């Protein structure tokens, strides 16, 4: 019941003026050698939307999300992020990365830096913040993910769930309008998944534009405005969350949902 209310509150009303486009992918192709990882991806994400991408392993979910901040360069089609086209030039790539935060499956915290140093490095270097201002900002977001008291520890001293929350805070310290999550809970023990999902739901309710690759279908139902189903490097189905789970159009998605929802 709450899922329905949330969804309707967040979903943009189609009749009124549409929100500005955050991410626009048109006919995106990606090859690894002769293997085609993405073929003809068309995806438009509007500001404030929460997109969940799911699908079997090897379907190109991670590759898709990684092309959005050009960790994987695409080989065909166009990707425009907040009005900046990823054309392969280092300057544009840099500009897009400043607009887009990313959270990884393996946390990827810098092991030689403390939690606080992890959080202030990029704001100081790329936003030109003073040490004091960067630390204030870092503490604000660390408090938000409830890890402020651990700021002077090293990543290896924290649990997986805590590390992932730090990784989210680190990305938030750049105050990006768009956040990408690449299977953020897949490397976590079950009891730690909840604390990370809680932080992500909190973010979602703040109006952040989120694109999230995840197998957490409960999270998808509660938070997503639209869901994307991928298979063999293609988008098979893309639909508002309600319809995605209760009225899937494609046979392939029906099979997939039957397998994972028991």
């Amino acid at each position, binding site marked *: 019941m709450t899922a329905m209310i949330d969804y309707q509150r967040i979903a943009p009303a189609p009749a009124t003026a549409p929100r500005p486009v955050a991410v626009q992918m048109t006919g995106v192709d990606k090859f690894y050698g002769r293997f085609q990882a993405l073929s003809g991806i068309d995806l438009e994400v509007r500001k404030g939307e929460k997109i969940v991408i799911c699908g079997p392993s090897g379907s190109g979910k991670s590759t898709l999300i990684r092309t959005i901040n050009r960790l994987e360069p695409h080989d065909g089609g166009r990707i425009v992020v907040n009005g900046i086209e990823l054309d392969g030039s280092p300057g544009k790539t840099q500009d897009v990365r400043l607009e887009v935060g990313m959270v990884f499956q393996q*946390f*990827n915290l810098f092991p030689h830096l403390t939690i606080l140093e992890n959080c202030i490095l990029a704001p100081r270097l790329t936003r030109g913040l003073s040490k004091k201002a960067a630390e204030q900002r870092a503490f604000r977001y660390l408090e938000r993910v409830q890890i402020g008291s651990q700021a002077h520890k090293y990543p290896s*001293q924290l649990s997986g769930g805590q590390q992932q929350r730090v990784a989210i805070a680190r990305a938030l310290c750049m105050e990006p309008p768009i956040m990408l999550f690449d299977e953020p809970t897949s490397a976590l023990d079950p009891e730690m998944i909840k604390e990370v999902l809680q932080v992500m739901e909190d973010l979602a309710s703040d109006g952040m534009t989120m694109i999230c690759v995840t197998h957490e279908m409960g999270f998808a139902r509660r938070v997503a405005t639209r869901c994307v189903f991928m298979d063999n490097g293609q988008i098979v189905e893309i639909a508002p969350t309600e319809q995605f789970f209760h009225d899937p159009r494609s046979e392939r998605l029906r099979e997939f949902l039957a397998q994972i929802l028991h």
Partner: protein
Amino acid sequence: MSALPIDLALAWDSLPAMFRGLTTTLLVTVLVLAFGLVLSIPLTLARISPRRIFAWPALLFIVFFRGAPLLLLLYFVYYGFGQIPALRDGPLWIIFGSSFACAVIGLTLNHMSYMVEVVRGSLEAVPAGLTEASEALGLTPRETFTWIRLPLAMRYGLKAYQNEVVMFTKGTAVVSVITVVDLTAVANEIFELTYDPFTPMLTAAAFYWVLVNLIRVVFRALERYLNRHLTAHEDRSKPANSLPQPTPVPSSIARWKASRSLGVPAKGQAL
């Protein structure tokens, strides 16, 4: 004559000369290590660059100077450059005319080409995920190198570098062939004056031994300092699953070792 092959009085008397030799050895070592460290990083970057215009000259340099025998290299630098009249009469003769400077140049060329492999291996050991995380945060490749890859590579490469430093320190003894009076040269001089084959050599050996162990202690302290992020585990019973961990032993080797210790014949071994 004592039963010992060592003449203690001679050893005692030779100490001042030995210390002078040690100073030269230390000076050569420190200078070459400093030059080598500074120069090997850009050389490594050139070597691993995707651009051939950088990679090929670097590869040529490394192949040549790793292959060149060190003794001959020193001979060529010291005696060879003197054959070029333009150099002999030019302002650079202050450098090439000095046996000490020639020793430093020759050793640096050799040391650099070895260091490239140490630096390269260390840089490649930095997990790709950390580089990606840094780039995703909007750091430029150069900032990522300075703040993430290089500091981590230093930690991964410390053991290999320590080996290289110890080997190199002992190897500086070759500079005596181009008339630099280092610790070994002093020992040789005393031998030639006294015809005592043991005392000066063993005294010098003791000096080298102490020097190498001092290096070991320094590296140990450095390692502790750099790896404080890994040793800060006192308040946790089990190590957290943080990246990066040291590479585990490949399972096939582990199995092979286990089978050996249990007396089980290894795969393919006839009974």
